[in-house]
Protein backbone atom coordinates (compact mmCIF):
# COMPACT_ATOMS: atom_id res chain seq x y z
CA UNK A 1 0.00 0.00 0.00
CA UNK A 2 2.80 2.42 0.74
CA UNK A 3 3.94 3.53 -2.66
CA UNK A 4 7.49 4.74 -2.76
CA UNK A 5 7.59 7.65 -5.13
CA UNK A 6 11.08 8.82 -5.98
CA UNK A 7 12.11 11.59 -3.65
CA UNK A 8 15.07 13.83 -3.22
CA UNK A 9 16.20 11.94 -0.18
CA UNK A 10 19.30 10.05 -1.17
CA UNK A 11 19.25 7.81 1.81
CA UNK A 12 16.56 5.46 0.57
CA UNK A 13 18.89 3.46 -1.56
CA UNK A 14 22.27 4.79 -0.63
CA UNK A 15 22.38 4.43 3.11
CA UNK A 16 21.93 1.16 4.88
CA UNK A 17 19.95 1.37 8.08
CA UNK A 18 22.28 1.15 11.06
CA UNK A 19 21.11 -1.22 13.74
CA UNK A 20 20.22 0.46 16.99
CA UNK A 21 18.65 -0.64 20.22
CA UNK A 22 19.86 -1.93 23.54
CA UNK A 23 23.53 -1.98 24.42
CA UNK A 24 24.15 1.41 22.91
CA UNK A 25 26.52 2.60 25.58
CA UNK A 26 28.48 -0.60 25.55
CA UNK A 27 28.76 -0.30 21.78
CA UNK A 28 30.00 3.27 22.06
CA UNK A 29 32.70 2.25 24.55
CA UNK A 30 33.82 -0.62 22.33
CA UNK A 31 33.88 1.77 19.37
CA UNK A 32 35.98 4.29 21.27
CA UNK A 33 38.39 1.51 22.21
CA UNK A 34 38.69 0.45 18.60
CA UNK A 35 39.20 4.07 17.53
CA UNK A 36 42.03 4.47 20.03
CA UNK A 37 43.66 1.25 18.85
CA UNK A 38 43.37 2.35 15.20
CA UNK A 39 44.82 5.75 16.08
CA UNK A 40 47.84 4.20 17.82
CA UNK A 41 48.38 1.55 15.16
CA UNK A 42 48.15 4.17 12.41
CA UNK A 43 51.04 6.12 13.90
CA UNK A 44 53.30 3.32 12.63
CA UNK A 45 52.41 3.96 8.99
CA UNK A 46 55.59 5.95 8.15
CA UNK A 47 57.65 2.95 9.24
CA UNK A 48 55.76 0.74 6.77
CA UNK A 49 55.46 3.19 3.88
CA UNK A 50 59.05 4.29 3.57
CA UNK A 51 58.86 5.79 0.08
CA UNK A 52 58.47 9.58 0.46
CA UNK A 53 56.25 10.02 -2.59
CA UNK A 54 53.91 7.25 -1.50
CA UNK A 55 53.84 8.61 2.01
CA UNK A 56 52.94 12.06 0.67
CA UNK A 57 49.99 10.49 -1.14
CA UNK A 58 48.87 8.85 2.09
CA UNK A 59 49.05 12.19 3.89
CA UNK A 60 47.13 13.92 1.06
CA UNK A 61 44.42 11.30 1.18
CA UNK A 62 44.18 11.57 4.96
CA UNK A 63 43.72 15.34 4.81
CA UNK A 64 41.19 15.13 1.96
CA UNK A 65 39.34 12.44 3.91
CA UNK A 66 38.41 15.11 6.43
CA UNK A 67 36.59 16.97 3.68
CA UNK A 68 34.91 13.76 2.51
CA UNK A 69 33.70 12.64 5.95
CA UNK A 70 32.26 16.12 6.46
CA UNK A 71 30.22 15.76 3.28
CA UNK A 72 29.43 12.14 4.15
CA UNK A 73 28.13 13.06 7.62
CA UNK A 74 25.46 15.33 6.16
CA UNK A 75 24.49 12.79 3.52
CA UNK A 76 24.32 9.99 6.04
CA UNK A 77 22.41 11.69 8.80
CA UNK A 78 20.34 14.30 6.98
CA UNK A 79 20.13 12.83 3.49
CA UNK A 80 21.37 16.03 1.87
CA UNK A 81 24.24 16.38 -0.59
CA UNK A 82 26.47 19.43 -0.31
CA UNK A 83 28.54 20.79 -3.16
CA UNK A 84 29.72 23.68 -1.03
CA UNK A 85 32.16 22.09 1.38
CA UNK A 86 35.05 23.31 -0.76
CA UNK A 87 34.20 26.73 0.66
CA UNK A 88 34.98 25.66 4.25
CA UNK A 89 38.03 23.65 3.29
CA UNK A 90 39.28 26.53 1.14
CA UNK A 91 38.38 29.31 3.57
CA UNK A 92 40.25 27.52 6.35
CA UNK A 93 43.27 27.09 4.07
CA UNK A 94 43.23 30.78 3.11
CA UNK A 95 42.74 31.69 6.75
CA UNK A 96 45.98 29.88 7.61
CA UNK A 97 47.76 31.46 4.65
CA UNK A 98 46.66 34.99 5.50
CA UNK A 99 47.32 34.65 9.23
CA UNK A 100 50.87 33.36 8.74
CA UNK A 101 51.98 35.26 5.66
CA UNK A 102 50.20 38.60 6.03
CA UNK A 103 49.98 38.91 9.80
CA UNK A 104 53.03 36.90 10.89
CA UNK A 105 51.08 34.65 13.27
CA UNK A 106 52.62 31.39 14.38
CA UNK A 107 51.43 28.45 12.28
CA UNK A 108 49.82 26.73 15.26
CA UNK A 109 47.67 29.77 16.07
CA UNK A 110 47.03 30.24 12.36
CA UNK A 111 45.64 26.71 12.07
CA UNK A 112 43.27 27.44 14.92
CA UNK A 113 42.29 30.67 13.22
CA UNK A 114 41.82 28.90 9.87
CA UNK A 115 39.49 26.34 11.43
CA UNK A 116 37.51 29.17 13.01
CA UNK A 117 37.24 30.99 9.67
CA UNK A 118 36.04 27.84 7.87
CA UNK A 119 33.56 27.07 10.63
CA UNK A 120 32.35 30.68 10.62
CA UNK A 121 31.71 30.50 6.87
CA UNK A 122 29.85 27.24 7.49
CA UNK A 123 27.69 28.97 10.08
CA UNK A 124 26.82 31.83 7.73
CA UNK A 125 26.16 29.52 4.79
CA UNK A 126 24.25 27.17 7.04
CA UNK A 127 21.86 29.93 8.13
CA UNK A 128 21.03 30.47 4.47
CA UNK A 129 20.83 26.91 3.21
CA UNK A 130 19.70 24.41 5.83
CA UNK A 131 16.03 25.12 5.25
CA UNK A 132 16.41 23.75 1.73
CA UNK A 133 16.57 20.10 0.82
CA UNK A 134 17.22 18.00 -2.25
CA UNK A 135 18.29 19.93 -5.31
CA UNK A 136 17.58 23.23 -3.61
CA UNK A 137 20.23 22.47 -1.01
CA UNK A 138 22.67 21.19 -3.59
CA UNK A 139 22.21 24.28 -5.74
CA UNK A 140 22.48 26.76 -2.87
CA UNK A 141 25.65 25.21 -1.47
CA UNK A 142 27.12 25.10 -4.96
CA UNK A 143 26.16 28.69 -5.70
CA UNK A 144 27.40 30.14 -2.41
CA UNK A 145 30.74 28.36 -2.62
CA UNK A 146 31.10 29.54 -6.23
CA UNK A 147 30.36 33.06 -5.05
CA UNK A 148 33.19 32.78 -2.50
CA UNK A 149 35.49 31.47 -5.22
CA UNK A 150 34.51 34.30 -7.56
CA UNK A 151 35.25 36.84 -4.82
CA UNK A 152 38.61 35.29 -3.93
CA UNK A 153 39.98 35.63 -7.46
CA UNK A 154 39.03 39.28 -7.78
CA UNK A 155 41.92 41.63 -8.42
CA UNK A 156 40.90 43.65 -5.39
CA UNK A 157 41.38 40.55 -3.22
CA UNK A 158 44.95 40.06 -4.47
CA UNK A 159 46.76 41.30 -1.32
CA UNK A 160 44.88 38.73 0.77
CA UNK A 161 44.34 35.76 -1.53
CA UNK A 162 46.80 36.25 -4.37
CA UNK A 163 43.83 36.05 -6.75
CA UNK A 164 44.37 33.51 -9.55
CA UNK A 165 48.05 33.04 -8.64
CA UNK A 166 47.24 31.57 -5.27
CA UNK A 167 49.22 32.18 -2.12
CA UNK A 168 52.55 30.89 -0.99
CA UNK A 169 52.77 30.45 2.77
CA UNK A 170 55.78 31.89 4.52
CA UNK A 171 56.66 32.22 8.16
CA UNK A 172 59.77 32.82 10.20
CA UNK A 173 62.42 30.18 10.61
CA UNK A 174 61.83 29.93 14.36
CA UNK A 175 58.05 29.61 14.05
CA UNK A 176 56.70 26.07 14.09
CA UNK A 177 53.46 24.11 13.71
CA UNK A 178 53.33 22.03 16.88
CA UNK A 179 57.13 21.78 16.80
CA UNK A 180 57.56 21.31 13.04
CA UNK A 181 59.36 24.02 11.06
CA UNK A 182 58.42 24.99 7.53
CA UNK A 183 60.68 22.32 5.99
CA UNK A 184 59.43 19.65 8.36
CA UNK A 185 55.70 20.14 7.73
CA UNK A 186 56.25 19.32 4.08
CA UNK A 187 57.95 16.06 5.05
CA UNK A 188 55.08 13.60 4.93
CA UNK A 189 56.63 11.24 7.45
CA UNK A 190 56.94 13.99 10.03
CA UNK A 191 53.54 15.56 9.25
CA UNK A 192 51.75 12.22 9.35
CA UNK A 193 50.87 12.16 13.08
CA UNK A 194 49.07 15.52 12.78
CA UNK A 195 46.97 14.43 9.84
CA UNK A 196 46.25 10.99 11.22
CA UNK A 197 45.28 12.12 14.70
CA UNK A 198 43.06 14.84 13.21
CA UNK A 199 41.26 12.33 10.99
CA UNK A 200 40.76 9.66 13.64
CA UNK A 201 39.63 12.17 16.26
CA UNK A 202 37.20 13.89 13.88
CA UNK A 203 35.86 10.60 12.53
CA UNK A 204 35.34 9.27 16.06
CA UNK A 205 33.61 12.50 17.06
CA UNK A 206 31.22 12.27 14.11
CA UNK A 207 30.58 8.63 14.90
CA UNK A 208 29.73 9.35 18.54
CA UNK A 209 27.50 12.27 17.51
CA UNK A 210 25.73 10.03 15.02
CA UNK A 211 24.96 7.46 17.73
CA UNK A 212 23.83 10.02 20.29
CA UNK A 213 20.32 11.28 20.90
CA UNK A 214 21.20 14.20 18.68
CA UNK A 215 21.97 11.65 15.96
CA UNK A 216 18.52 10.14 16.46
CA UNK A 217 16.99 13.59 16.11
CA UNK A 218 18.87 14.07 12.85
CA UNK A 219 17.63 10.71 11.61
CA UNK A 220 14.08 11.72 12.48
CA UNK A 221 14.50 14.95 10.50
CA UNK A 222 15.99 13.04 7.58
CA UNK A 223 13.16 10.55 7.54
CA UNK A 224 10.26 12.93 8.07
CA UNK A 225 10.95 16.59 8.70
CA UNK A 226 7.30 17.58 8.92
CA UNK A 227 6.37 14.90 11.44
CA UNK A 228 9.31 15.98 13.58
CA UNK A 229 7.87 19.48 13.76
CA UNK A 230 4.43 18.06 14.51
CA UNK A 231 6.09 16.04 17.27
CA UNK A 232 7.42 19.17 18.92
CA UNK A 233 10.96 19.15 17.56
CA UNK A 234 12.60 22.21 16.04
CA UNK A 235 14.29 21.15 12.85
CA UNK A 236 16.26 24.26 11.90
CA UNK A 237 18.58 24.16 14.90
CA UNK A 238 19.65 20.52 14.65
CA UNK A 239 20.19 20.87 10.92
CA UNK A 240 22.28 23.98 11.41
CA UNK A 241 24.37 22.31 14.13
CA UNK A 242 24.98 19.27 11.91
CA UNK A 243 25.88 21.51 8.98
CA UNK A 244 28.35 23.59 11.03
CA UNK A 245 29.86 20.46 12.56
CA UNK A 246 30.46 18.93 9.15
CA UNK A 247 31.84 22.26 7.95
CA UNK A 248 34.17 22.40 10.95
CA UNK A 249 35.57 18.96 10.10
CA UNK A 250 36.15 20.07 6.50
CA UNK A 251 37.85 23.20 7.90
CA UNK A 252 40.26 21.09 9.94
CA UNK A 253 41.19 19.39 6.67
CA UNK A 254 41.64 22.71 4.89
CA UNK A 255 43.84 24.18 7.60
CA UNK A 256 46.10 21.12 7.65
CA UNK A 257 46.18 21.11 3.86
CA UNK A 258 47.49 24.68 3.78
CA UNK A 259 50.23 23.97 6.34
CA UNK A 260 51.29 20.74 4.65
CA UNK A 261 51.27 22.03 1.07
CA UNK A 262 52.68 25.45 1.97
CA UNK A 263 50.57 26.82 -0.84
CA UNK A 264 46.92 27.68 -1.34
CA UNK A 265 45.36 28.08 -4.78
CA UNK A 266 41.84 29.27 -5.57
CA UNK A 267 40.79 25.96 -7.13
CA UNK A 268 40.48 24.39 -3.67
CA UNK A 269 37.73 26.90 -2.89
CA UNK A 270 35.75 26.04 -5.95
CA UNK A 271 33.46 23.41 -7.05
CA UNK A 272 36.05 21.03 -8.52
CA UNK A 273 37.56 20.23 -5.13
CA UNK A 274 34.19 19.73 -3.48
CA UNK A 275 33.01 17.80 -6.55
CA UNK A 276 36.02 15.46 -6.46
CA UNK A 277 35.54 14.92 -2.76
CA UNK A 278 31.84 14.24 -3.20
CA UNK A 279 32.59 11.72 -5.95
CA UNK A 280 35.15 10.02 -3.74
CA UNK A 281 32.63 9.86 -0.90
CA UNK A 282 29.92 8.50 -3.20
CA UNK A 283 32.22 5.81 -4.57
CA UNK A 284 33.28 4.84 -1.06
CA UNK A 285 29.67 4.95 0.15
CA UNK A 286 27.83 7.04 2.73
CA UNK A 287 26.34 4.16 4.67
CA UNK A 288 29.42 3.64 6.79
CA UNK A 289 31.52 6.36 8.30
CA UNK A 290 34.66 4.90 6.71
CA UNK A 291 33.04 4.91 3.25
CA UNK A 292 34.17 8.43 2.30
CA UNK A 293 37.64 7.66 3.66
CA UNK A 294 37.95 4.50 1.56
CA UNK A 295 36.70 6.46 -1.44
CA UNK A 296 39.17 9.29 -0.89
CA UNK A 297 42.15 6.94 -0.64
CA UNK A 298 41.07 5.19 -3.85
CA UNK A 299 40.59 8.56 -5.53
CA UNK A 300 44.03 9.82 -4.56
CA UNK A 301 45.57 6.51 -5.61
CA UNK A 302 43.77 6.66 -8.96
CA UNK A 303 44.77 10.28 -9.45
CA UNK A 304 48.42 9.36 -8.94
CA UNK A 305 48.39 6.25 -11.10
CA UNK A 306 45.72 6.51 -13.79
CA UNK A 307 45.96 10.12 -14.77
CA UNK A 308 47.65 9.23 -18.07
CA UNK A 309 46.90 11.67 -20.85
CA UNK A 310 44.93 13.82 -18.44
CA UNK A 311 42.00 11.45 -18.66
CA UNK A 312 41.36 11.28 -14.93
CA UNK A 313 37.96 12.92 -15.14
CA UNK A 314 36.91 10.59 -17.93
CA UNK A 315 37.58 7.67 -15.61
CA UNK A 316 36.16 9.24 -12.48
CA UNK A 317 33.01 10.21 -14.36
CA UNK A 318 32.69 6.67 -15.66
CA UNK A 319 33.37 5.15 -12.24
CA UNK A 320 30.84 7.46 -10.61
CA UNK A 321 28.15 6.43 -13.10
CA UNK A 322 28.95 2.73 -12.78
CA UNK A 323 28.90 2.88 -8.98
CA UNK A 324 25.64 4.84 -8.86
CA UNK A 325 23.91 2.60 -11.38
CA UNK A 326 25.15 -0.80 -10.31
CA UNK A 327 26.19 -0.47 -6.69
CA UNK A 328 24.23 2.31 -4.98
CA UNK A 329 25.66 2.56 -1.50
CA UNK A 330 29.18 2.57 -2.90
CA UNK A 331 31.92 0.12 -2.15
CA UNK A 332 31.36 -0.10 1.59
CA UNK A 333 27.58 -0.27 1.11
CA UNK A 334 27.98 -3.22 -1.23
CA UNK A 335 30.21 -5.05 1.24
CA UNK A 336 27.69 -4.30 3.96
CA UNK A 337 24.89 -5.84 1.89
CA UNK A 338 26.97 -8.94 1.12
CA UNK A 339 27.79 -9.31 4.81
CA UNK A 340 24.13 -9.05 5.83
CA UNK A 341 23.15 -11.55 3.15
CA UNK A 342 25.77 -14.01 4.35
CA UNK A 343 24.59 -13.70 7.94
CA UNK A 344 20.98 -14.19 6.93
CA UNK A 345 21.96 -17.20 4.83
CA UNK A 346 23.68 -18.80 7.76
CA UNK A 347 20.67 -18.43 10.05
Amino acid at each position, binding site marked *: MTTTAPTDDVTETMVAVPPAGPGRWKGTLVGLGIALAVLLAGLAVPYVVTDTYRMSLVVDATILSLLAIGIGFLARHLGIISLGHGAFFGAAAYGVGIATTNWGWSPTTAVGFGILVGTGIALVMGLLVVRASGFGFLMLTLALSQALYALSVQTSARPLTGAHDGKLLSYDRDQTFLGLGQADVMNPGLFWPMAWVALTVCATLLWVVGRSRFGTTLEGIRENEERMRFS*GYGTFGPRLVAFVLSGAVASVGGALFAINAGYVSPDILGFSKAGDSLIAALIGGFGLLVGPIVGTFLFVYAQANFNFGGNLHLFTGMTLILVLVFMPGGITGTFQKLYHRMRKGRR
Partner: protein
Amino acid sequence: MTIFEGRGLTVRYGAHVALEGVDIALEPGVVHGVIGPNGAGKSTFIDALSGRKRPSAGTVTFEGADITRRSVRWRRGKGLSRSFQRTSVFGSMTVGDQLEMVARRNDEQDLDEIVSTLGLDAIRHQVCSEIAYGTQRSVDLAIALIGRPKVVLLDEPCAGLVHDESVRMLQHVRDVCKDRDVAALLVEHDVEGVFRTCDVITVLDLGKVLASGAPDEVRADENVIRAYLGSAA
Protein backbone atom coordinates in the same frame (compact mmCIF):
# COMPACT_ATOMS: atom_id res chain seq x y z
CA MET B 1 -16.46 23.56 28.19
CA THR B 2 -14.64 24.35 24.97
CA ILE B 3 -10.88 23.87 24.96
CA PHE B 4 -10.10 24.29 21.28
CA GLU B 5 -12.00 26.38 18.82
CA GLY B 6 -11.87 27.41 15.17
CA ARG B 7 -13.92 30.46 14.19
CA GLY B 8 -14.68 31.66 10.68
CA LEU B 9 -11.88 29.61 9.19
CA THR B 10 -11.37 30.46 5.54
CA VAL B 11 -8.68 29.14 3.21
CA ARG B 12 -8.26 30.44 -0.32
CA TYR B 13 -5.97 29.11 -3.02
CA GLY B 14 -5.89 32.04 -5.39
CA ALA B 15 -9.46 32.49 -6.57
CA HIS B 16 -10.55 29.07 -5.31
CA VAL B 17 -12.12 29.04 -1.86
CA ALA B 18 -11.41 25.67 -0.25
CA LEU B 19 -12.89 26.53 3.11
CA GLU B 20 -15.30 29.31 3.94
CA GLY B 21 -16.18 30.57 7.40
CA VAL B 22 -16.15 27.24 9.19
CA ASP B 23 -16.68 27.16 12.97
CA ILE B 24 -15.90 24.29 15.26
CA ALA B 25 -15.54 23.78 19.02
CA LEU B 26 -13.93 20.79 20.70
CA GLU B 27 -14.48 19.64 24.27
CA PRO B 28 -12.39 17.29 26.43
CA GLY B 29 -13.57 13.70 26.34
CA VAL B 30 -15.70 14.28 23.28
CA VAL B 31 -15.01 12.75 19.89
CA HIS B 32 -16.04 15.25 17.25
CA GLY B 33 -16.39 13.75 13.77
CA VAL B 34 -16.03 15.63 10.51
CA ILE B 35 -17.43 14.05 7.37
CA GLY B 36 -18.08 15.27 3.87
CA PRO B 37 -17.76 14.17 0.28
CA ASN B 38 -14.47 14.38 -1.60
CA GLY B 39 -13.44 17.99 -2.09
CA ALA B 40 -15.55 19.17 0.84
CA GLY B 41 -12.43 20.73 2.39
CA LYS B 42 -11.82 18.18 5.14
CA SER B 43 -8.05 18.01 4.70
CA THR B 44 -7.77 21.78 4.29
CA PHE B 45 -9.82 22.14 7.45
CA ILE B 46 -7.54 19.96 9.57
CA ASP B 47 -4.46 21.65 8.05
CA ALA B 48 -5.85 25.06 8.96
CA LEU B 49 -6.67 23.93 12.51
CA SER B 50 -3.31 22.24 13.07
CA GLY B 51 -1.17 25.07 11.72
CA ARG B 52 0.07 23.22 8.65
CA LYS B 53 -1.74 25.75 6.50
CA ARG B 54 -2.26 29.30 7.67
CA PRO B 55 -5.93 30.28 7.21
CA SER B 56 -6.66 33.28 4.98
CA ALA B 57 -9.18 34.44 7.55
CA GLY B 58 -10.53 33.30 10.89
CA THR B 59 -8.94 32.38 14.20
CA VAL B 60 -7.91 29.28 16.09
CA THR B 61 -8.07 29.50 19.87
CA PHE B 62 -6.77 27.09 22.47
CA GLU B 63 -7.68 27.45 26.13
CA GLY B 64 -9.01 30.90 25.33
CA ALA B 65 -5.84 32.22 23.67
CA ASP B 66 -5.49 33.03 19.98
CA ILE B 67 -2.93 30.64 18.51
CA THR B 68 -3.65 31.15 14.79
CA ARG B 69 -0.10 32.30 14.07
CA ARG B 70 1.74 29.90 16.36
CA SER B 71 4.13 27.32 14.87
CA VAL B 72 3.23 23.64 14.87
CA ARG B 73 6.14 22.98 17.17
CA TRP B 74 4.81 25.47 19.73
CA ARG B 75 1.34 23.94 19.50
CA ARG B 76 2.68 20.45 20.13
CA GLY B 77 4.45 21.71 23.21
CA LYS B 78 1.15 23.07 24.55
CA GLY B 79 -0.70 19.81 23.96
CA LEU B 80 -2.08 20.09 20.44
CA SER B 81 -1.33 17.14 18.27
CA ARG B 82 -2.39 15.63 14.94
CA SER B 83 -2.02 12.55 12.76
CA PHE B 84 -1.78 12.35 9.01
CA GLN B 85 -3.88 10.86 6.25
CA ARG B 86 -0.84 9.77 4.27
CA THR B 87 0.96 7.69 6.85
CA SER B 88 3.63 9.86 8.38
CA VAL B 89 6.14 7.81 10.32
CA PHE B 90 9.91 7.54 10.47
CA GLY B 91 10.56 4.74 8.01
CA SER B 92 14.17 3.85 8.73
CA MET B 93 13.80 3.78 12.52
CA THR B 94 12.46 0.97 14.63
CA VAL B 95 8.97 1.48 16.06
CA GLY B 96 10.42 1.64 19.57
CA ASP B 97 13.16 4.13 18.68
CA GLN B 98 10.81 6.60 17.07
CA LEU B 99 8.22 6.43 19.82
CA GLU B 100 10.96 6.92 22.44
CA MET B 101 12.33 9.85 20.46
CA VAL B 102 8.92 11.57 20.44
CA ALA B 103 8.32 10.58 24.07
CA ARG B 104 11.57 12.26 25.16
CA ARG B 105 10.52 15.53 23.62
CA ASN B 106 6.95 15.44 24.91
CA ASP B 107 7.58 14.26 28.44
CA GLU B 108 5.61 11.03 28.19
CA GLN B 109 5.69 9.08 31.45
CA ASP B 110 3.97 5.93 30.33
CA LEU B 111 4.98 5.05 26.79
CA ASP B 112 4.41 1.35 27.48
CA GLU B 113 0.72 2.00 28.02
CA ILE B 114 0.31 3.64 24.61
CA VAL B 115 2.32 0.85 23.00
CA SER B 116 0.17 -1.86 24.55
CA THR B 117 -3.15 -0.05 23.98
CA LEU B 118 -2.39 0.16 20.29
CA GLY B 119 -1.05 -3.39 20.21
CA LEU B 120 2.46 -2.46 19.15
CA ASP B 121 4.41 -4.53 21.71
CA ALA B 122 5.30 -7.33 19.36
CA ILE B 123 6.78 -5.12 16.65
CA ARG B 124 8.60 -2.66 18.87
CA HIS B 125 12.02 -3.69 17.61
CA GLN B 126 11.07 -3.86 13.96
CA VAL B 127 12.03 -1.23 11.42
CA CYS B 128 8.94 0.84 10.66
CA SER B 129 9.16 0.69 6.87
CA GLU B 130 9.10 -3.10 7.04
CA ILE B 131 5.89 -3.55 9.03
CA ALA B 132 2.38 -3.91 7.63
CA TYR B 133 0.54 -0.81 6.44
CA GLY B 134 -2.24 -1.15 8.99
CA THR B 135 0.30 -1.30 11.79
CA GLN B 136 2.05 1.76 10.41
CA ARG B 137 -1.25 3.61 10.77
CA SER B 138 -1.26 2.61 14.45
CA VAL B 139 2.30 3.90 14.84
CA ASP B 140 1.18 7.17 13.24
CA LEU B 141 -1.62 7.38 15.83
CA ALA B 142 0.75 6.46 18.66
CA ILE B 143 3.10 9.31 17.69
CA ALA B 144 0.15 11.71 17.90
CA LEU B 145 -0.93 10.39 21.33
CA ILE B 146 2.45 10.58 23.05
CA GLY B 147 2.80 13.19 25.78
CA ARG B 148 -0.88 13.26 26.79
CA PRO B 149 -1.95 15.96 24.34
CA LYS B 150 -5.15 17.77 25.29
CA VAL B 151 -6.36 18.01 21.71
CA VAL B 152 -5.82 15.43 18.99
CA LEU B 153 -6.73 16.10 15.36
CA LEU B 154 -6.95 12.86 13.42
CA ASP B 155 -6.86 13.02 9.63
CA GLU B 156 -8.54 9.89 8.26
CA PRO B 157 -6.87 7.38 10.57
CA CYS B 158 -8.69 4.57 8.74
CA ALA B 159 -7.54 5.53 5.23
CA GLY B 160 -6.49 2.38 3.43
CA LEU B 161 -7.47 0.01 6.24
CA VAL B 162 -9.66 -3.05 5.71
CA HIS B 163 -12.99 -3.13 7.55
CA ASP B 164 -11.87 -5.03 10.66
CA GLU B 165 -8.79 -2.88 11.10
CA SER B 166 -10.93 0.19 10.64
CA VAL B 167 -13.37 -0.85 13.37
CA ARG B 168 -10.50 -1.56 15.75
CA MET B 169 -8.81 1.76 14.95
CA LEU B 170 -11.95 3.79 15.71
CA GLN B 171 -12.46 1.84 18.92
CA HIS B 172 -8.91 2.77 19.98
CA VAL B 173 -9.60 6.40 19.18
CA ARG B 174 -12.76 6.40 21.27
CA ASP B 175 -11.12 4.56 24.18
CA VAL B 176 -8.15 6.91 24.29
CA CYS B 177 -10.37 9.96 24.08
CA LYS B 178 -12.54 8.79 26.96
CA ASP B 179 -9.78 7.34 29.17
CA ARG B 180 -7.52 10.34 28.85
CA ASP B 181 -10.19 13.02 28.55
CA VAL B 182 -8.80 14.17 25.23
CA ALA B 183 -10.65 16.51 22.88
CA ALA B 184 -10.56 14.60 19.61
CA LEU B 185 -11.37 15.71 16.10
CA LEU B 186 -11.90 12.81 13.73
CA VAL B 187 -11.90 13.57 10.03
CA GLU B 188 -12.98 10.39 8.33
CA HIS B 189 -14.21 9.02 5.06
CA ASP B 190 -15.93 6.05 6.65
CA VAL B 191 -19.37 7.56 7.40
CA GLU B 192 -20.72 4.53 9.19
CA GLY B 193 -17.65 4.44 11.44
CA VAL B 194 -18.01 8.12 12.31
CA PHE B 195 -21.67 7.71 13.30
CA ARG B 196 -20.69 4.77 15.49
CA THR B 197 -17.73 6.49 17.12
CA CYS B 198 -18.44 10.18 17.50
CA ASP B 199 -20.43 12.17 20.04
CA VAL B 200 -20.80 15.21 17.80
CA ILE B 201 -20.63 15.36 14.01
CA THR B 202 -20.01 18.23 11.63
CA VAL B 203 -20.76 17.77 7.94
CA LEU B 204 -18.75 19.80 5.45
CA ASP B 205 -19.73 20.36 1.86
CA LEU B 206 -17.97 22.59 -0.66
CA GLY B 207 -15.95 24.22 2.11
CA LYS B 208 -18.94 25.13 4.28
CA VAL B 209 -20.68 23.59 7.27
CA LEU B 210 -23.80 21.80 6.09
CA ALA B 211 -24.94 20.58 9.48
CA SER B 212 -23.58 20.04 12.97
CA GLY B 213 -24.87 18.27 16.03
CA ALA B 214 -25.48 14.89 17.63
CA PRO B 215 -25.31 11.89 15.27
CA ASP B 216 -29.09 11.36 15.28
CA GLU B 217 -29.80 14.99 14.45
CA VAL B 218 -27.28 14.98 11.64
CA ARG B 219 -28.63 11.75 10.26
CA ALA B 220 -32.08 13.26 10.17
CA ASP B 221 -30.99 16.59 8.69
CA GLU B 222 -32.66 17.14 5.35
CA ASN B 223 -29.77 19.06 3.84
CA VAL B 224 -27.36 16.29 4.73
CA ILE B 225 -29.61 13.63 3.28
CA ARG B 226 -30.09 15.56 0.08
CA ALA B 227 -26.49 16.58 -0.46
CA TYR B 228 -24.55 13.72 0.85
CA LEU B 229 -25.96 10.73 2.64
CA GLY B 230 -28.66 10.09 0.09
CA SER B 231 -30.58 6.88 0.39
CA ALA B 232 -27.65 5.14 2.10
CA ALA B 233 -28.47 6.71 5.47
